[in-house]
């Protein structure tokens, strides 16, 4: 989709680097991202494939501006995300949203489902009346496959799959252009994973949404994504069209991952 030079990418990462150290008593673990280059166009589904410790989640945090970085550039619609004015910064918050791995941990335990989903609406569509917002919340919950009666429950009263649906509803409530999914399936049961995959597919069809799908599961990434970046030890070792990577990987690491996947 739209890989020509004429169209500017929605998200562009150039030579991104980040390093940090964690110190515990005597042990020091250092970690770094090096020379990350990545492009993502409007409406595209791009996968980042990597094992734990590859730096893929750090990358997600950098793109969502939850973590600073050392060198390089992250451009959103051609503009450096570190040079945003407060207004642009606020608008960016509605355009890039994120869904995390642990659905229970990503919902405020003291908020009812309705409050959680409403949080973004209150911020980014303050002109709506309370009634209109409630209506929108009901619509959103329906869109992610939840009964409206769940809206008065607390997160611990619903199942993990339902929690993840709520997290997705909250993310799409502000009508983002880019949805970053950081291992959204990993803590769910097999049959629920399939439900959430189906939900993503239907959302991609209905909404004008680009998606950055971060996962360790080569089969899921292969199924959902148009293009894939393979990450290993803080570097991108391979990138390309899904079919090309799945059928004839050029890097040894990708080949090894393909070999070992069940």
């Amino acid at each position, binding site marked *: 989709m739209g890989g020509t030079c004429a169209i500017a990418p929605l998200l562009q990462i150039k030579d991104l680097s980040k390093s940090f150290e964690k110190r515990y008593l005597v042990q020091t673990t250092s970690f770094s991202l090096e020379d990350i280059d990545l492009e993502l166009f409007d409406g595209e589904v791009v996968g980042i494939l990597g094992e734990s410790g590859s730096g893929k989640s750090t990358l997600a945090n950098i793109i969502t501006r939850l973590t600073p970085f050392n060198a390089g550039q992250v451009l959103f619609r051609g503009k450096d995300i570190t040079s945003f004015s407060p207004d642009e910064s606020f608008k960016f918050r509605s355009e890039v*949203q994120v869904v995390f791995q642990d659905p*229970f941990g990503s919902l405020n335990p*003291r908020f009812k489902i309705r409050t959680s989903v409403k*949080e973004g609406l209150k911020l980014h569509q303050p002109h709506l009346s309370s009634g209109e917002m409630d209506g929108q919340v009901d619509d959103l919950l329906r869109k992610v496959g939840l009964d409206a009666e769940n809206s008065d429950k607390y997160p611990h009263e619903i199942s993990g799959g339902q929690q993840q649906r709520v997290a997705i509803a909250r*993310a799409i409530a502000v009508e983002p252009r880019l949805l970053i999914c950081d291992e959204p399936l990993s803590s769910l049961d097999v049959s629920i994973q399939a439900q959430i995959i189906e939900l993503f597919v239907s959302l991609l069809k209905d909404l004008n949404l680009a998606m950055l799908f971060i996962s360790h599961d080569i089969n899921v990434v292969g199924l959902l994504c148009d293009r894939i970046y393979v990450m290993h030890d803080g570097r991108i070792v391979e990138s390309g069209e899904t079919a090309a990577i799945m059928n004839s990987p050029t890097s040894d690491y990708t080949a090894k991952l393909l070999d070992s996947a069940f």
Partner: protein
Amino acid sequence: MRSLANGWIEKCAIVVAAAVIVMAIIGPHVAPHDPLAVDFRNRLVEPSWTYLLGTDGSGRDVLSRILHGAQLTILSTATVIATVLIIGCALGIFSAFVGGTVDNFLMRIADIWLGFPPLILALGFAASLGSSLEAAIWALIFSWWPTYARLSRMITVDILSRKFVASARALGVSTWRQVTHYVVPNAFDVIIIQITLDISAVMLAISGLSFIGVGAQIPEPEWGAMIAEGRSFTASGWWIVTFPGLMIFITALSFNVIGDMLRRELDPTLTARH
């Protein structure tokens, strides 16, 4: 929270704590005598129908003094707790949000502070402020805030590392709202347990300071001061020290039991959330 009070000890503790609080509210109005009125003709009267708990060395009614003292003790304890709670938590949450050097600096100060036994610190401070109940209260506030600063900072750091705060930030939720709607409600459990456990500790500290002589002054009807005053009469008037001592004992004990019970019930490591 379903079965808060299952044991009879917990039930008793709740009843006693409630009774003490009721006593603090209505005590001064139902007291049969003036707690400060000296009456040398009736000094050291044994408990009787006129003086239910007897009179002290200056002929003051012990029951009336205990009833007035309840208000004094509870109010001073509440003042200390409320103030250290506000100051400590504000500092702790601020420290956790700002992080870095400021965080390090504040927490090292708190650490050094915690290195001194609070009662000794309070004793020195109260003595230098001049001996009065107000001085004791100030001294305890001064020595107690680091507990809450450390605790609230620790909880806040933990909450900030959780993904729901990350999602809130990704939505652009303001820092103030993160504090009021995300951090404080989720820190509540742990803080409330600490408060219940501290109530008895502060109460004992106030009485202790008064007993030593740097807190409430004779003839104020504070329980610790009453024991200090009654010390010299232990042989001739056992009731003068026994009843205030008993009050301190059962009040502190019941708040402690309630604190322990809350901790058992709310401790996130003991109760699975799913």
